[in-house]
């Protein structure tokens, strides 16, 4: 009975009760699937959509330049989609930062009441349907959309502009949905900023630009880095935004992966593409952890 058990024994039982269900769940439905995906990415695609159990590095080769010689010549099309996705994700990060950074300074200096209200307004869209928020941009940007109708009616243009189905439309859509992701970490570091240092720098004769570059920017860098990572990762593998705002013309990694799974049925190749997304994520996280670790060490010294 429980009362006979030692305290340590009882605690061990409690811990086991709390952790066993989750451990099983994660082992089977999270780590398991990831392992299987990694294995699949090294297997040969079967004839009718299945896999063949032989080691086959050419799934990665198709992307990186050592395609299966028996099957095809290397075509850099996949590499260019990969690079293009990196580019779009990078632009998204930069644009989101430009949108959020100045606003964070303004909101950080408001009174408590207004501050909370503004933060509420910024987080609210995060809880609303992502697909609906993207759909609104279709209405705004398409040929018969609000922007084109307004410009036509105003006589500024005489033919509708091609706004939707472009790289720019994808970046715009991503910026719109990722604003809260960037704003929160940036805001956290802006709010902690020690303004006496800024004043000291100004008093000692450094100009506003120099103060910004030497004091404000380094002090808010952790927030910027954090925001950049949590925007970059979902932007890189995103497939909803390019599917809705990029049309058939603009292909990103996400669409390519979807295609491999749901229409081309080349699962090993699709897995290899997903692994590319994952390795970029791991590299970024590694850099972030090392950099913030060094920063912490600097502060200690």
């Amino acid at each position, binding site marked *: 009975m429980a009362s006979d058990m030692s305290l340590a024994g009882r605690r061990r039982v409690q*811990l086991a009760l709390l*952790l066993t269900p989750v451990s099983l769940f994660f082992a089977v439905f999270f780590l398991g699937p990831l392992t299987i*995906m990694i294995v699949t990415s090294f297997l040969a695609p079967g004839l009718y959509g299945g896999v063949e159990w032989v080691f086959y590095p050419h799934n990665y080769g198709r992307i990186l330049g050592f395609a299966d010689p028996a099957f095809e010549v290397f075509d850099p099309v996949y590499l260019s989609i990969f690079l293009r996705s990196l580019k779009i994700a990078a632009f998204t990060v930069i644009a989101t930062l430009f949108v959020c950074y*100045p606003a964070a300074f303004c909101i950080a200096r408001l009174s408590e009441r207004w501050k909370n209200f503004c933060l509420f307004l910024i987080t609210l869209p995060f809880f609303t349907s*992502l697909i609906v928020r993207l759909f609104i941009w279709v*209405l705004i940007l398409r040929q018969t959309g609000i922007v084109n109708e307004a410009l036509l009616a105003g006589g500024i243009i005489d033919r509708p502009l091609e706004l939707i189905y472009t790289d720019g439309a994808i970046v715009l859509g991503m910026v719109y949905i990722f604003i809260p992701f960037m704003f929160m970490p940036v805001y956290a570091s802006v709010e902690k900023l020690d303004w006496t240092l800024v004043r000291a720098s100004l008093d000692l004769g450094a100009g506003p630009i120099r103060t910004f570059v030497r004091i404000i920017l380094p002090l808010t860098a952790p927030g910027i880095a954090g925001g950049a990572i949590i925007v970059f990762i979902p932007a890189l593998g995103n497939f909803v935004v390019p599917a809705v705002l990029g049309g058939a013309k603009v292909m990103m990694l996400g669409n390519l992966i979807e295609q491999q799974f749901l229409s081309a049925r080349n699962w090993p190749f699709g897995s290899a593409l*997903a692994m590319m997304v994952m390795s970029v994520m791991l590299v970024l996280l590694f850099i972030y952890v090392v950099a913030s670790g060094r920063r912490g060490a600097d502060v200690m010294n």
Partner: protein
Amino acid sequence: MKIARFLFRGSLFAYTALFFAFIYIPLVLIGVYSFNANPVNMMTWTGFTTQWYAQVLGFKTTISENALYIESTDQLVQAVWNSLIIAGSTTVIATVLGTAVAIALYRFAFFGKRFYRTVMFMPMLMPDIVLGIALLIFFVNSGIALGLTTIIIGQCTFLISYVFIVVSARLAGMDRTLENASADLGANEWVTFRKVVFPQLLPGIVGGALLAFIISMDDLVITYFIAGVDVTTLPMFIFAMLRRGIKPEINAIAVMMLSFSFVVASLGLYLRSRQK
């Protein structure tokens, strides 16, 4: 110098106003245009109507057939039902499991604690599409038929993490002296948990559950890959509509969805601000 500072302040305010305009004008626009009577071009205003709402809600309308997507609202209602069933189940499972891990990591020191913490954060950082296809390969290989069950399991993998984080934050801010006081006054562990810890923890659990519910209702990518052919959720339904071409009814659906999540989210955030 004073004028320069004034100008700088002013432009910063103007910038922030534009920032909020960028976020909210699109939402206002869709609200306005969902009452537009024009069945051909949704963005050219021809008059006020509530017909689109009536149509979506299944009332009789005079809208001509070719302006419509869904001949009946059956598909839409089915999608909403599926989403609610999934969100309900995942919320219960994720809340129980996520809270359990949070409590375990808070109260006990044990080997592998850091590993658990890392694993709990991984599903949130993982790009949706990677998790989606990993689960798809897993379910197909293990012979589990794709459908409601696989969606519920799949969504739980990342919803547990969200609940874990919200509940952990609550635990970290809790007053441990109360627990000690309760123990000193002779309450056993179970009574202390029920009467002291749990009531303090409850806002965190409710917050985590609400978050899980909303995210589950909204999940598209992971659900899309593991839904199979028979099950459609609300976000999948809208996604499919967008791919086929847009008809005005979708405005009304969008506005109703936005209003629903606004109400739930405001309620959640309000409750949280009261608890502090």
